[in-house]
């Protein structure tokens, strides 16, 4: 946690997110409990956890898409936990997003050029300058410049994700929240998109909050990793420690659950996993008894 000496770019303090229940007078649903994370300049924080663990909600809370019940989200020294729409508009220059599903994150009725020009237009850039910037962006993510006049459905999943990344990059943000950006992609496409993320970070010094369920992906792209389980962060630290020698029982289970592409090593891992599950079960019983 002592990663960054000077003030971090983003710092989340004791964050609680609750969704009001649909039923009358029922207890609200608590999606996140006492979350504390920081992200420095040019740093990637990987956020790993299983479905329903709240990792996506944390990303959405930072973006202002989830309600902040308690706690603070501080971006560049300003509390943005309850930013108004007008403040968000200013903030969108520095804070952007890439969503998981490249099929629904682009409006199917708009041309790629219009999609990419949208955030530029919001910031008041005129049309000619915006068009020039859109060309640059397409170039930066490795798409042909004639993509401007095409519709999203004419592109494959990997290419659409490149468009989504280009949209996030349009305003040269300082932090991009990446919500499972490679989960819907094929293996070789995933590798290329991860390369693109790394390259962009190298070129622009952008920070990532990288949400994923895949420990391998998170290990590959992150400087530090936080592990979420049932709405809480159970472990965080430098990527190589958390993803190779975790402390928390859940992270240990997670690590040994992901299969390796070699039959003999996988057999070994399987045996390790069964041993771990057995030990944890015994520990649980002991704590229950005592």
């Amino acid at each position: 946690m002592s990663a960054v000496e000077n003030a971090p770019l983003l710092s989340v303090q004791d964050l609680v997110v609750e969704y009001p229940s649909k039923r009358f007078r029922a207890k609200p649903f608590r999606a996140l409990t006492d979350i504390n994370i920081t992200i420095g300049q040019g740093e990637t924080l990987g956020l790993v956890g299983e479905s329903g663990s709240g990792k996506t909600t944390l990303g959405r809370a930072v973006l202002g898409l989830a309600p902040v019940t308690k706690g603070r989200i501080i971006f560049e020294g300003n509390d943005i936990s309850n930013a108004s729409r007008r403040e968000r508009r200013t903030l969108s220059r520095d804070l952007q997003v890439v969503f998981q599903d490249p099929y629904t994150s682009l409006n199917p009725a708009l041309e790629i050029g219009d999609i990419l020009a949208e955030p530029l237009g919001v910031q008041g850039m005129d049309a000619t300058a915006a068009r020039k910037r859109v060309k640059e962006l397409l170039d930066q993510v490795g798409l042909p410049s004639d993509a401007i006049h095409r519709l999203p459905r004419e592109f494959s999943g990997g290419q659409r994700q490149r468009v989504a990344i280009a949209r996030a990059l349009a305003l040269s943000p300082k932090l991009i929240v990446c919500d499972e950006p490679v989960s819907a992609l094929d293996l070789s496409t995933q590798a290329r998109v991860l390369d693109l993320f790394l390259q962009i970070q190298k070129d622009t010094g952008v920070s990532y909050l990288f949400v994923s369920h895949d420990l391998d992906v998170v290990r590959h792209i992150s400087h530090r990793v936080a592990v979420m389980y049932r709405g809480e962060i159970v472990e965080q630290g430098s990527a190589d420690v958390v993803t190779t020698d975790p402390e928390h029982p859940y992270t240990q289970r997670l690590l040994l659950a992901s299969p390796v592409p070699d039959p003999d090593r996988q057999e070994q891992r399987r045996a390790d996993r069964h041993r771990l599950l057995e030990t944890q079960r015994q520990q649980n019983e002991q704590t229950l008894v005592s």
Partner: protein
Amino acid sequence: MSDSVETAAVAAPMPVGQSGTVVRSTVIRRLLKNPLGIASLVILGSIAVLAVLAPVLAPFGENFANITKTLAAPDSVNILGTDSAGRDTWSRLLFGAQLTLLSALLCAGVAIAIGLPAGLIAGYYGGKFEGVSNWVVSILMSLPGLIVLLTIRAAFGPSVWISMIAFGVLISPSYFRLTRTAVQSVRNELYVDAARVSGLSDLSIIARHIFSVVRAPIIIQTAAIAGVAIAIQSGLEFLGLGDPTRATWGVMLSEGFKNVYLTPTLLLWPALAMALTIGGLVLLGNAIRDALEDGEKIRHRRQRTPVAGTSAERTTAERAKARQARKTVAAVDIGTEHHLVKVTHLGVGYPQADGSVKKVVDDVSFHVDRGEILGIVGESGSGKSQTAFSILGLLPDNARIVAGSIQFDGNYTVAPGEDRVNQDRLSRLRGKRISYIPQEPMSNLDPAFTIGYQLVTPMVRVLGITKAEARKRALKLLADVGIANPERTFQAYPHEVSGGMAQRVLIAGAISCEPDLVIADEPTTALDVTVQADVLDLLRELQQRLNIGVILVTHNFGVVADLCDRVVVMQNGRLVEEGTVREILRSPKEKYTQTLLGSMLEGKTPMTMLVSPPEGPVSHESGSTAPAGQDAAAEKEPVA
């Protein structure tokens, strides 16, 4: 970016050459190609032109009466004759068109002006406004429309405009509901979220991203509502509640009805005009809907275009031949009977509209023996699922086996030369000797029935055992697949169990009839990693205990390493490489397999480029730094 995989994937739709502008105009073009669409447009167009030109075309004013010439037959002056007051029918018909059409437009306009914004706001924001407006809408919809209109007529007098405004208000809930539902379906789309993150105001989000979804349904709805408005308005006037000083079709109808025994043609003309207009509106609405839906069909199931020719070409002779072939199935090649499944030079294709056949599986051969797990690995679009489905006989109707054969346990399920999977032969095997584990556990359980019912029914049918026996067996199966409380799961509905649990239930179902072959299509892809590990353990344990053959379709090499004995790698419908799991994973010979394995993250130095980049400005740069990248990463890494 010139990576082969991505460009290959996008190459297929490309030749159609659909750029944005073309697509938009295709709806109109498709509308004009539809004979009903053209007919309705021509009818409505000409009626509108006649109405606009009424003052020029009409020889007389709408109320000009020639009392000396009442109920006259058509002649050169009054081309459609005159009515009981000696007014010219043709002139009144023209002026009537003006008033009738305008009032119908007014009615639709009022309905849209109320329903559309209210629906947009209620759908987008939800909350209190939605609650209150739903309540108002319910009240409006429960009011008896005709009685309200009669009351309004009594209060405000016989004005067409007032009654049509009132009717517009009464009918606005239909727009409200339409809009609200459409908006709700896109409100949580990610692109709306992305727009919010970009700082777009709600107004521009609605205008840019949301309004486009409701535009088409609104147009269709308006065509229908305008027709209804004309009908209602004419109905009121026919009852004699119209404004007698203005010529409308309804008033003319009423007038004609009074003289129906003297001059029946007086009734004919306004009725004809109304029938044409209302019919035209209804047809136009249908044609627009068809034009829009056609577009969707092509977009989503491009490969499923049915061929008009083939079914017609299937002559009786061919059918007889097929019938005979079904009776006498050719024997399989000697020496291959012992294979549980043998696929030989299989080709699967989809006939296209232009007569060509799009091959999705091409020349694929492999075999599976008893007690063996064969992995089929490939990326999306590699044809791995299509291959598995052709063994199961679950290909879509218009799919054709274009080459090769499939045999199961020494008998052909697809004999050489057959162009379809023989369902007669397969339905005896499916469920009993071949079973299937799907990718999405939740969508493969029927939410309307308990899990127990869905397990018991196939067993009763396939194994012919009693319900009680089947129930006992199902409970044992549920226990076998590692479900802690089988009784409770047995009685649960699918929505009451987790995804991992649902997949266990489906595995229990797959082995319930003691199959020889299980085909598992990405059985763990939708599951969390920890759950995946459990399910893999379960599959391995069951496979060893029951000694069944398994075909495992997956894209995950970790899963392959965990379960498979042998692997085939597929790319773009072709079989690229085949071998034992160790051969393929450790020393792949084909470049494609090497690329796939090279994309694996396991064992890679973090923060380094994974793929040696082919070209492009960004990639070039990284290409030069890639070898040094490991050092760079090593320096960067110790952040903590």
